[in-house]
């Protein structure tokens, strides 16, 4: 088959859009001897090559697995529509980029699912591979189909399509899975037996082993494990110490969404913003030492030749050695004329010393995330920074030579008033005035105003999603209020947010809707030009399911939520306490100074302060 695939590529690739997506052969690509490798994993990213290639999660697993002598990992991304049509026309199955082997010939296919709008592409990729869409339809010949990534913290809507999910971090558990699959292959055991064994690995969720019963009103009555009545939850995995960072990043031969050395300096976040799913599900905080970060940066720039370096974390300026790291970054970037980007800085910890390390450097965009327009509302979402602090930071930024400022806001918070919306306008106008005084006409301010999506595993998980009219009215207030200021406003398409709401807050019954929407032609839903909400609404109708049940309905505090059997290690009591504090406008300070008993320490028997720093 590989020969047929190669002949097909040789002849037809020139006729499709962006053919470089399907060519492979990047610098640092690892091609192993297929015949001599015991266990084979395909790492699948259900969006285009350009989006998927820089994905750090996939890079980490590619690195981890290919370090083993007995295993190989190859990559596959979702072919664009024209290529899908061409492959179907010529009966070419979906193949890996490295050895050009059909996906069906791998032992395991692992999908990376960082967000929900990729679900229809996941179905396209299974279908193009000739693999049955549903776990229950697969035979002994089919690979094991697994998924991981942040979206899997509510795996239910896609649960029938996957054989297993990895909940949480994959660095360790991927090896346990491959070991098991290798033994299973050697012993010639059945698929069923493999799933039973996978079910014993902590952090693995086998959806077919859980049954969900419903009340007549549609609410969940019970979620139970079929064989193990005592197993109520699957608890996420995390690594106590972050492994050596990836340094041999793949260097693409065509342009991708970002091309840079990305070193994750810290995982987890201590701020506890109540809307932020990432901040809840990635606890506890684990830093990499400044030495390790700088050594990795150096080695990665040498091995990739990339012209930009980036430090990743949810809250970069909170790293205990950030000044040291920044000094090192400046040295490395100056020596080789590299640009650098530093996302996720916090107003609270963005100190003058830190700013000083960046002196004399060409200034790109600077981002501040006030999230809400008034201090009162910011307290309710636990983002306790004052207008004065925001203004002071912005002023300092302009003084240091930055001209482009980006501000992140959200609307749709509980009990949000028009005064809160006016707060966004006032704050932007004040920042604009300060910037104008200091740097004049070169000032550019962009604001991005998202609509809150009350995500699973956050204190806001019970909240309804905002309705269309209210949302539209608030956006109108903001754009009217900022008229003639030259401030550019980005906002999401409401229909697109709704899709994210359904898919992130739904239950198993949504699988039929997803499959029907896919059959209706939904694909690349994350792409505005492809997304068609009519296909989704039609699918809800066909399946006789009311989308509002998942979107605009406030959930009862004692309701069994679709993801209640998936544990992030954070206790539900903590989420309830945080929700109540939010209603009172009470903040929970940074948990490095005071522990709020979120459950991470007790559930995992760990000490956060011991895991936090490494020197």
């Amino acid at each position, binding site marked *: 088959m590989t020969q047929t695939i190669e002949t097909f590529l*040789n*002849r*037809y*690739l*020139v*006729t499709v859009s*962006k*053919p*470089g997506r399907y*060519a*492979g*052969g*990047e*610098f640092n*690509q690892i091609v192993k001897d297929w015949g001599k490798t015991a266990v084979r994993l395909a790492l699948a990213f259900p969006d285009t090559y350009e989006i998927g290639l820089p994905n750090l999660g996939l890079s980490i697993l590619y690195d981890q697995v290919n370090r083993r002598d007995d295993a190989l990992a190859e990559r596959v991304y979702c072919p664009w529509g024209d290529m899908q049509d061409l492959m179907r026309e010529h009966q070419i199955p979906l193949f890996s980029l490295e050895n050009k082997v059909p996906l069906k010939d791998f032992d395991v296919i692992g999908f990376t699912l960082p967000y929900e709008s990729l679900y229809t592409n996941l179905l396209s990729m299974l279908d193009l591979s000739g693999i049955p869409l549903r776990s229950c339809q697969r035979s002994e010949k089919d690979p094991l189909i697994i998924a991981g990534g942040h979206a899997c913290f509510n795996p239910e809507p896609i649960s029938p399509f996957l054989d297993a999910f990895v909940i949480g971090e994959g660095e360790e558990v991927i090896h346990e899975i491959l070991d098991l699959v290798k033994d299973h292959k050697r012993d010639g055991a059945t698929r069923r037996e493999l799933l039973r064994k996978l079910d014993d690995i902590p952090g693995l969720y086998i959806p077919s082993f859980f049954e969900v019963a419903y009340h007549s009103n549609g609410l969940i009555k019970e979620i139970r494990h079929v064989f193990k009545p005592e197993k109520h939850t699957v608890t996420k995995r995390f690594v106590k110490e972050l492994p050596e960072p990836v340094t041999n990043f793949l*260097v693409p*031969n*065509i*342009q991708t969404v970002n*091309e840079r050395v990305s070193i994750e300096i810290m995982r987890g976040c201590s701020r506890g913003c109540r809307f932020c799913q990432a901040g809840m599900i990635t606890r506890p905080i684990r830093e990499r030492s400044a030495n390790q970060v700088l050594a990795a940066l150096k080695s990665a*720039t*040498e*091995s*990739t*030749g*990339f*012209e930009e370096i980036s430090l990743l974390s949810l809250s970069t300026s909170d790293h205990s050695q950030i000044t040291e790291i920044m000094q090192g970054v400046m040295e490395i970037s100056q020596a*080789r*004329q590299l640009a650098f980007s530093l996302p996720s800085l916090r107003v609270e910890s963005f100190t003058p010393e830190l700013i000083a390390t960046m002196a004399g450097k060409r200034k790109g965009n600077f981002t501040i995330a006030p999230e809400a327009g008034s201090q009162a509302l910011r307290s309710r979402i636990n983002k306790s920074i004052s207008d004065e602090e925001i203004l002071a930071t912005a002023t300092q930024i302009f003084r240091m030579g930055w001209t482009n400022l980006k501000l992140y806001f959200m609307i749709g918070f509980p009990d949000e008033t028009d005064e809160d919306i006016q707060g966004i306008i006032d704050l932007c106008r004040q920042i604009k005035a300060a910037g104008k005084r200091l740097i004049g006409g070169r000032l550019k301010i962009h604001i991005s105003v998202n609509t809150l999506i009350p995500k699973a595993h956050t204190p806001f998980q019970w909240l309804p999603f905002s309705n269309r009219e209210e949302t539209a009215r608030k956006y109108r207030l903001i754009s009217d209020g900022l008229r003639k200021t030259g401030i550019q406003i980005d906002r999401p398409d409401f229909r697109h947010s709704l899709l994210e709401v359904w898919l992130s807050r739904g239950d198993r019954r949504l699988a039929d809707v997803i499959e029907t929407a896919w059959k209706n032609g939904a694909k690349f839903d994350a792409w505005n030009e492809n997304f068609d909400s009519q296909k989704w609404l039609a699918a809800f109708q066909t399946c006789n399911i009311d989308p509002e049940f998942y979107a605009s309905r406030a959930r009862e505090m004692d309701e069994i939520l679709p993801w209640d059997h998936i544990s992030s290690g954070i206790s539900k009591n903590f989420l309830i306490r945080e929700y109540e504090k939010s209603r009172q406008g009470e903040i929970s300070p940074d948990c490095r100074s005071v522990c709020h008993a979120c459950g991470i320490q007790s559930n995992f028997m760990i000490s956060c302060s011991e895991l936090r720093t490494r020197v």
Partner: protein
Amino acid sequence: MRIRIVFSKTANLRYTSILDVQKIWERTVRRAGFYLQYSQGFHPQAKIQAANPLPLGYDGLEELVDLWLTGGPAPDLIVQQLSEALPDGISIKRIEIVPENAPSLPKQVDFSDYCIRLHDSEQDFAGILEKIKSLLARETLPRTRNGKNYDLRPLILDLAAERISGDSIEIYLRMPSNPGKTGRPEEVMFELGFEWQDFQIVRRRLILGEPEP
């Protein structure tokens, strides 16, 4: 120092555009441990100059690029270290040191020689020869490309076909490749009745200055 690299670009790099190839050179130099010179100004650009863009999907056997490096590493060392740092699909044939004030490459390119391989060896060779003959006999070949009408005939400077070992058929073509006039071999192939999936275009070499006899 200014060096001129003669290189081939084939296989999986067939689908990489000229801009992305520039980036590949920039990164390769960095990986190899050399330093490129940068232009002055607010947005410094690496000093790299390709002779002529090779369209997507073509193979190139002797493509040319000039790089300006800082310092003066030995040519052997440059070839060795760059070769190790290049991705699969580009390989260096040779390099030469060029005087700093030599004319710029793009201005020197006049023509390209192509060899077009037919994928299917079962093609009727006599028929192809016949078609070439009648095509060359035409005085004009009006065609439309990207919505523009033009005459393809004067862009065909040389056209021939040959059956080579193993029954495969190759078509040879010389066309202009300068900023004023650029011929696209696939247009000739379309005129001969072929489609994209029937052939592979290989640019054998770029011809600088006056065409050789």
